C-alpha cells in the first residue's frame, strides 16, 4: 500500500528554472522546462506527475522558499502586519541629597553614564580616555552590567550598534584616532536611527599626533560623522562636573532622537580632577517599541540603513534631516560669562573656555568690556543665544585648541543666520598646548587697542 504523502506542488511563477531539483529526484520525474512563464519571464521546471511519488526530496533541494512545496502558493495571502509593542518608558529614580564627590573627568563621564542607566559599555583602550573604560570595567560587574573590551574601535561601535539596536543605553570612551575608526559605524547608527553615546576625549593629530589636549575633532563631530547626510548633537564640557552632567544628558538626547550623541571633551578634561555634585535622580532605562530585543513582541522590528528604493531612501534622508532641524531648533545650548554689553566677546568651548573665563574676569576687573560666549553644543551651534550679545559686541575673539575648527563652525553659523560684518580675531594653539589666561588677556587687549 502506498504511503500517504503530502502532494508535491510546483509554483511555476516562483520557479527560476535552476534545475537543482532534477538531480534530487530519485524518480527522474523532473525536467528543465522549455516554456517561458509569462509572469516570471523564467523557464520553470516540469514535473511528470505520472512518475512522481511525492517523496518531497525536490522541495529540500529547491533554493526558493515557495518554489516547490505542498500547496499552491496563495498570492493574495498577506501576513498580518505585526504591530509594534508599546515602549516601556525609562523610570526616573530620585536620589537623596548627596555630598559632592571628587572625580577625574573620565570617571565623571563614566558615572554620568551609569546614573543615566547605562550598563553596557564597549571600548578599546586609548590615551587619554582609558580611565573611563577602566572604571566601567570595575563598576559594571557590581551593577549587573557588562564591559566588553573590543578588538578595535571598529568592533566597538558595532557592538554598540547591536546593543543600542536592542534598545539599551550603551556608550564608549575613545580619543581622536579611535574616533576616526568609529565614524563608519556612527554613520550606520544614524542611518538605522539607533542611539549611542560617544565620549571622545580629543587629542592632537593628524595621524598619531600625541596624547595632550586638542580640540582636534570639531570638524569631524560637526561635519564629518562618516558618510552620508550625518549629524549628531555634540556636547562640549569644561569641567568634571560637566563631564558627568553632559554625559548623563547625552543618553536622553540619544534616545529622544534615536541618534548618536557625542561628548567632545579633550585630554585635559579627561585627566583633570575636581569637585562634582551628583544629580538629584538616576535613570532605569525602559525598552523602546522599536528595539530589536529578541522576543515575540519585538519580532517584527528591523534595524537597517539600506533602502533599495531611491525615492524611499530620499524620504528616509528627509526624515532624518527633519530630526536635525528639530535638534537645531530645540537643542542649542550655551553659557555666557559677563557677556552682556561686552564690546569684545570671546568665543571658546571646552577647556579653553575655562581659561577664557579667567581672562575675562581679569579684563573686567580692569574695567575692560569683555565677555565670554561658550557654545555647549558645538552642533547645533548655539547661534540663537549669540544674537543678543552680538548686538553690543564690536569684535569676536575665537580662542581654541585647534587650527580654526571652532571658528569655522562660528562663521558658518553666522553666515546661515545672515549675520555679517563683525571682525573675528583668534587665538589658536595645537599639539597639546592650550591657550593660557595670559595669552587670551593679551590677545583681547591687543585686538582692542589695534582697532582703536
Amino acid at each position, binding site marked *: 500500500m502506498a504511503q500517504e504523502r503530502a502532494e508535491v506542488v510546483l509554483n511555476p511563477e516562483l520557479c527560476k528554472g535552476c534545475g537543482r531539483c532534477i538531480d*534530487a529526484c530519485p524518480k527522474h520525474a523532473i525536467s528543465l522546462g522549455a516554456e517561458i512563464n509569462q509572469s516570471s519571464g523564467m523557464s520553470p521546471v516540469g514535473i511528470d506527475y505520472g512518475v512522481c511519488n511525492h517523496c518531497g526530496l525536490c522541495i529540500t533541494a529547491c533554493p526558493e*522558499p515557495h518554489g516547490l512545496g505542498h500547496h499552491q502558493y496563495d498570492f493574495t495571502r*498577506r501576513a498580518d502586519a505585526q504591530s509594534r509593542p508599546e515602549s516601556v518608558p525609562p523610570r526616573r529614580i530620585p536620589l537623596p541629597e548627596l555630598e559632592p564627590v571628587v572625580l577625574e573627568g573620565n570617571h565623571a563621564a563614566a558615572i554620568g553614564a551609569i546614573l543615566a542607566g547605562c550598563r553596557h559599555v564597549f571600548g578599546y583602550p586609548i590615551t587619554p580616555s582609558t580611565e573611563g573604560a577602566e572604571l566601567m570595567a570595575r563598576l559594571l560587574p*557590581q551593577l549587573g552590567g557588562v564591559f566588553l573590551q573590543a578588538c578595535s574601535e571598529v568592533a566597538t561601535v558595532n557592538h554598540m550598534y547591536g546593543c543600542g539596536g536592542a534598545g539599551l543605553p550603551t556608550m564608549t570612551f575613545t580619543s581622536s584616532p579611535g574616533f576616526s575608526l568609529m565614524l*563608519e559605524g556612527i554613520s550606520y547608527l544614524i542611518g538605522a536611527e539607533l542611539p549611542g553615546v560617544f565620549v571622545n576625549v580629543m587629542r592632537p593629530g593628524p595621524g598619531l599626533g600625541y596624547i595632550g589636549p586638542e580640540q582636534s575633532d570639531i570638524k569631524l563631530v560637526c561635519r564629518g560623522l562618516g558618510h552620508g547626510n550625518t549629524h549628531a548633537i555634540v556636547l562640549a564640557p569644561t569641567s568634571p562636573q560637566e563631564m558627568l552632567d553632559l554625559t548623563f544628558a547625552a543618553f536622553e538626547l540619544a534616545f529622544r532622537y534615536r541618534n548618536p550623541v557625542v561628548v567632545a571633551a579633550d585630554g585635559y578634561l579627561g585627566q*583633570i580632577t575636581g569637585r562634582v555634585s551628583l544629580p538629584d535622580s538616576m535613570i532605569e532605562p525602559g525598552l523602546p517599541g522599536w528595539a530589536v530585543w*529578541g522576543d515575540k513582541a519585538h519580532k517584527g522590528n528591523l534595524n537597517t540603513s539600506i533602502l533599495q528604493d531611491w525615492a524611499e531612501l530620499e524620504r528616509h534622508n528627509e526624515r532624518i534631516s527633519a530630526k536635525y532641524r528639530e535638534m537645531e531648533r530645540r537643542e542649542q545650548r550655551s553659557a555666557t560669562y559677563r557677556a552682556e554689553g561686552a564690546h569684545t566677546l570671546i568665543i571658546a568651548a571646552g577647556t579653553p573656555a575655562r581659561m577664557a573665563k579667567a581672562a575675562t574676569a581679569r579684563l573686567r576687573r580692569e574695567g575692560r568690556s569683555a565677555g565670554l560666549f561658550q557654545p555647549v553644543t558645538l552642533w547645533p551651534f548655539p547661534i540663537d543665544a549669540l544674537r543678543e550679545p552680538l548686538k553690543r559686541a564690536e569684535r569676536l575673539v575665537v580662542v581654541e585648541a585647534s587650527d580654526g575648527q571652532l571658528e569655522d563652525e562660528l562663521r558658518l553659523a553666522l553666515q546661515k543666520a545672515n549675520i555679517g560684518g563683525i571682525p573675528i580675531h583668534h587665538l589658536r594653539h595645537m599639539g597639546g598646548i592650550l591657550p593660557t589666561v595670559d595669552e587670551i588677556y593679551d590677545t583681547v587687549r591687543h585686538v582692542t587697542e589695534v582697532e582703536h
Partner: protein
Amino acid sequence: MTTSALYTHFARHAGGAGLKGASTHYCAGCGHGLAHKFVAEALVELGVQDRTIMVSPVGCAVFLFYYFDTGNTQAAHGRAPAVALGHKLANPEAIVVSYQGDGDLAAIGLAEIMHAAQLGIPISVVFVNNAIYGMTGGQMAPTTLTGQWSTTTQDGRGPLQGAPMRVSEVIAQSDGAMYVERCALFDQKQRKRCKNAIKKALRLQLEGRGLGFVEILSECPTHWRMSSREAEAHVRDVLSTVFPLGVIKDEERQPWFTLPKPDFSPERVLAAIGASDAAPPRHCRGFPEHIDAADVSIKLAGAGGDGAQTAALLLTKAAISEGFDSTHIPSYGPESRGGTSYADVHVAREEVLSPGAPEPHALVAFNAPSLEKFASTVRPGGLVIYDSSVIRTVPDVAAGVRVVPVPCTAIARELGNARVKNVVALGALQEALRLLEPASLLAALGRSLAGKSEWIAVNEEAFRRGGSAAAGRS
C-alpha cells in the same frame, strides 16, 4: 503548522509587490536560498523563532530581513559578529545568528570573527562560502580557488593574489569556537548534514555552551558562469577538495553563559560610585586668605613614582571636603614609570577658573630637574619645598620666595618606606603654607587608605615628620 521561520509573504522585498513578494532576490541556483531554508527550519524545530535575531551581512545576503520572520539587524560590512555580540550581551535570552559571506567574514571582517570565535560567547555563525564576491559582480574572494577566474583575477588567481583561505580550520584554532563544521548543498546527503549542523550550532547557543560555526560551500552559478547543476558538481568535485567537508571541531562543553540582570537600585549604584549623603567634618575656619584672596595654586613636580600625583590628589580631596573648589591636573611624560610627572593643584574660595599653575604660589620639587624647571615660576612671596635628600643645588628664585629644604627621602627611609616621601612633603607643605588644617589632610589620607589600615600609621607619621622638618624641629 509553521515549519519554517521564513515569511510566507516577503513584504519587505520590493514592498511585497507581485512575484517579488513570494520569491527571493537570489539568482537561479544560488545556495543562499537553501541556507536560509535550513536556518529557518532549524529555528522552528528548536522552538526559538520568536526570540531569534538574524544579523545580516553586506553581500548577497544583505536582504536576509526580507525573508526571516524574526528580529532583524543589518550590519556594516564584516561587522556582523560584533553586532551579534552587542545583541547577545544586551539580551542573553535572544538567539543571535550572524550570517555572513566569504568577503564579509574572511576579508574585511576577519578581526571581528576571529575575536568572536576566541571569545566564545554563544552565538551561531553561518558562513556561506562560494569563493567569489557575488553582490559586487564576481571579484576575487579570500576563498577564491587558485587559478579561478574572477573579474579581478583575469588570468586566474595567481601567486600575487595568494592562496584560498581555509576559514573553518582557522576558526577551529580559536578556543571559544566549540563546534566547527564545513557542509555543502550539492546533494541530499549534504543538505541534510548542513541542516543538522546549523541546528546543532543553534542548540549549543540555546544551551549556553558556546559559539558554533557552520561553513557552507555554496554555489554561485552566475559568477562561476555555470549552470546550476554544473555548479553543484563543481562544489562536489573541486571546491570540497580544497575545503574538505566534515566536522573540524566538536568539543564537549558545559553550559556556562549567563549574565546577571542589570541592577538599578539606587543604594547599589551609590555604593558603587562611592557617593554618600554624609558630610565629612570640616576643620578649616575659612579660606587661606594669607596666601591669596580667592585662588591658591600649587605645583608638585618629580619623576614618575615620586608620588607627586597622589599627594596632589590628596590636597584636592581635602580642599573639596572643606567646602572649597579644587582641581588637580596631571602632566605625565610618555613613560608609565620613571618619566616626568607634574601636578597642578588649585584651591579656590568659589571656583577654579583656570586649572593650570604656570605661576604657582608654592612648588614642591622631588628632584633637581623639576626644581630647576619650575623654581623661577613661583610667584614673589611664594614657597619652594624641595627634597634635600636628593637635591644639592638650589637655583635662583623670585624675590621673597621662601625656600624650605626637607629631607623627604631620608625621612621616608627612616620610617622604613621610601614611598611615603610624598606624604612627608605634604606635611611640610601644610606646615610652611598653612593651606588647610593638618586634620583635613590626615582625614583625606585616612579615606584614601580605607581598606589598607596597616598603612595609616606610617603615613600619619610621615606627615607629622614632614611638618616638623619644615618647622625646623627635626
